[in-house]
């Protein structure tokens, strides 16, 4: 593990040194296919996909260590991020032989990039409210409907999308949904980027108009989509990206705080570091449970809730203890601070809001 961490660290230092990328907070949202290819050459993509399916067959915790290094360095891992974190493992577990063969080697090579097709215009936190439909067609299914707030959906090559395969039953809304792997270059798919308040356009809206998906591209059994989505979310919620998105900023802040910093600055840095070190252990504990084949839904929600809260708070704390002001065109610290401040409102709304997570935790505690 130690060797793996240090070799990833060296790769990243060389990348920064040679101008391969500029460190960014929330690098997992930054889409850079060329960087993903270089990661794939080093074996850092598709790490947990079994070898016989075209992956590297490494342990979940080994991927965790590599991913930590990527995030802490602010590397632009967004192009392969979703495929590597959840779509690849999901296809490895629930996909047909044909689908695995068609997709998994391309993920590992860093060429196939995935988006998450869950949210819809009227189904965000209340995911069971989706209306997009799939109807049986000859040799497969026909998709119709709309997905929105899809991170990098206009740049990805594929999506795992959740569609209704049976009419909605108001009493049992979780039934009758199915996950499909969709090639986003298929006829009938139209994609529109959505500009956000940072000036970027990472979200997108995707419309499906009679899009054909072959039978082999169904995940699991038709109708079992809700259970599959819940399993996928455990991977989505437990990772170090829910804590380390702002690590590049904190690392950049430290050298400037060394000389003549106030007691208040020492105290606040100490407080933040105590939280980060503790939450990192918590996140690692969740990862170890996933590694052991468990599904720690409640703990994953706790880790995300606490991690996101810290990520949102950190830029505001630095503003208080450091006289340097945010500046998108300033030095590295000022630029990272400005970016982190602007990104802060989005941190707590991706992958489940704190309000939803606390409901999940409450259920896990036996309330309700």
């Amino acid at each position, binding site marked *: 593990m130690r060797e793996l961490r240090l070799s990833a660290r060296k790769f990243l230092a060389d990348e920064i040194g040679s101008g391969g990328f500029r460190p960014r907070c929330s690098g997992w949202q930054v889409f850079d296919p060329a960087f993903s290819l270089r990661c794939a050459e080093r074996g850092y993509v598709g790490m947990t996909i079994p070898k016989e399916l075209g992956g590297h067959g490494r342990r979940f915790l080994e991927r965790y260590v590599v991913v930590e290094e990527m995030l802490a360095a602010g590397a632009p891992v967004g192009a392969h991020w979703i495929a590597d974190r959840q779509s690849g493992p999901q296809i490895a577990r629930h996909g047909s032989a044909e689908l695995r063969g068609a997709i998994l080697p391309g993920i590992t090579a860093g060429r196939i990039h995935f988006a998450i097709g869950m949210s819809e215009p009227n189904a965000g936190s209340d995911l069971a409210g989706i209306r997009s439909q799939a109807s049986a067609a000859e040799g497969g299914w026909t998709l119709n409907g709309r997905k929105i707030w899809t991170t990098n959906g206009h740049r990805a090559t594929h999506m795992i999308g959740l569609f209704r395969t049976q009419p909605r039953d108001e009493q049992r809304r979780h039934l009758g949904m199915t996950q499909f792997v969709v090639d986003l270059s298929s006829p009938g798919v139209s994609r529109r980027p959505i500009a956000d308040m940072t000036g970027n356009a990472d979200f997108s809206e995707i419309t499906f108009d009679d899009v054909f998906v072959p039978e082999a591209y169904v995940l699991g059994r038709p109708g079992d989509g809700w259970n599959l989505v819940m399993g996928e979310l455990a991977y989505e919620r437990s990772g170090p990206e829910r804590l380390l998105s702002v*690590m590049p900023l904190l*690392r950049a802040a*430290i050298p400037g705080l060394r000389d003549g910093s106030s007691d208040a600055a*020492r105290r606040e840095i100490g*407080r933040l570091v105590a*939280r980060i070190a*503790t939450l990192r*252990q*918590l996140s690692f504990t969740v990862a170890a449970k996933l590694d052991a084949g468990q599904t720690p839904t409640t703990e994953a929600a706790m880790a995300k809730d606490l991690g996101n809260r810290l990520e949102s708070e950190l830029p505001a704390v630095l503003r208080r203890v450091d006289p340097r002001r945010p500046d998108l065109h300033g030095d590295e610290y000022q630029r990272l601070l400005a970016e982190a401040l602007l990104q802060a409102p989005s941190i707590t709304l991706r992958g489940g809001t704190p309000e939803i997570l*606390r409901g999940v935790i409450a259920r896990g505690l036996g309330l309700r």
Partner: protein
Amino acid sequence: MTEHSAIVGETADRVLSVESGDSIPGAAGAWQAATEAGLHRLLVREPEGGLGDDFETAAVVASRYGAHAQSIPLLDVIVCNWAFSHAGLPVADAPAVFVPGASIEARVAEDHTLSWKRHFHVPMIVGAPRILIALELPGGPSIAVLDSPLPNALTTSLAGEPYGRIGACSAVLPLELVPLPSGLPSLLDLAALLKAAAIAGALERILELTVSYANSRVQFGRPIGQFQAVQHMISRMSGETVAASVAIREAARMLGGGRGPFAVATAKAFIGEIAGTLPTLAHQVHGAIGYCEEFVLHRLTRRIWSWREQMGDEVYWQETLGSLVLDNGGDLWHMLTDAEHPAAGRPDSDYTGLQRPLNSG
């Protein structure tokens, strides 16, 4: 969890469930039960019948101690006996407490007399304890042992336990200074770990009480735990409670290695911070009953608020950690991830960066 910690933890849970209350007679019973079970000798070296440096088991015992809101000075005597054992002194069956010398500005003069400039407090619930003062001498860490000095005033902790105030002293004392072997974790780190573990154990108990209360108390025709506002308070408590236990496990595992000081500072800083907010949330969920003498919640709350002041409050440890990060010159991320990174060790000038006095009582 080590093999020992599960077995010893069960024993500790049973022994420490003896209700000590805030009263001296109650504490005497609890003290007797704990010493009969040998818990006070937990960390003495193995030839003397203890587990040696098994800090993970000690943290489990401290957590059970906290969950039962104990008032006896068991954790103090565990720390003292660990030091006595390593220093080659006889271990104590009577109460003993540890005081960091730097926190009272203790000095040893050339004629081997000891003086200190600040007063401190010692627990008196099972009688006046012996006092172990840890000193950083030019020859290395040493301890001085004072036989139960008479306090010059009595006071109580926030938890209502009797404490004695030992005033500043510049008198010539007959004194034996005993060096500790080099390479041991600092007494303060061990003592802070155990106090933090006690808080973490008490927080776990508070969470259990709060979930159970929210599920049984009915208002507006349903258990209050069904209201989203209440669920969110309890969810927040639970996340930080679990994180506290994770921090304790990590610190207990690391103590004794190069990363020990960093991990202990992390645990006591984090737990000291949530020691304020979590009981407050629990009281909010409980409403008026939680504020009542007859209900158990306040015993935990008041002990948590007493323990968080001891062995360095959260501000002390936050500043310690901030200084470790800022004065070390290395990269924060490397420090966080490098288990045996030298930067994680405490600088040689042990307590000299002290910004605030450690309150020992």
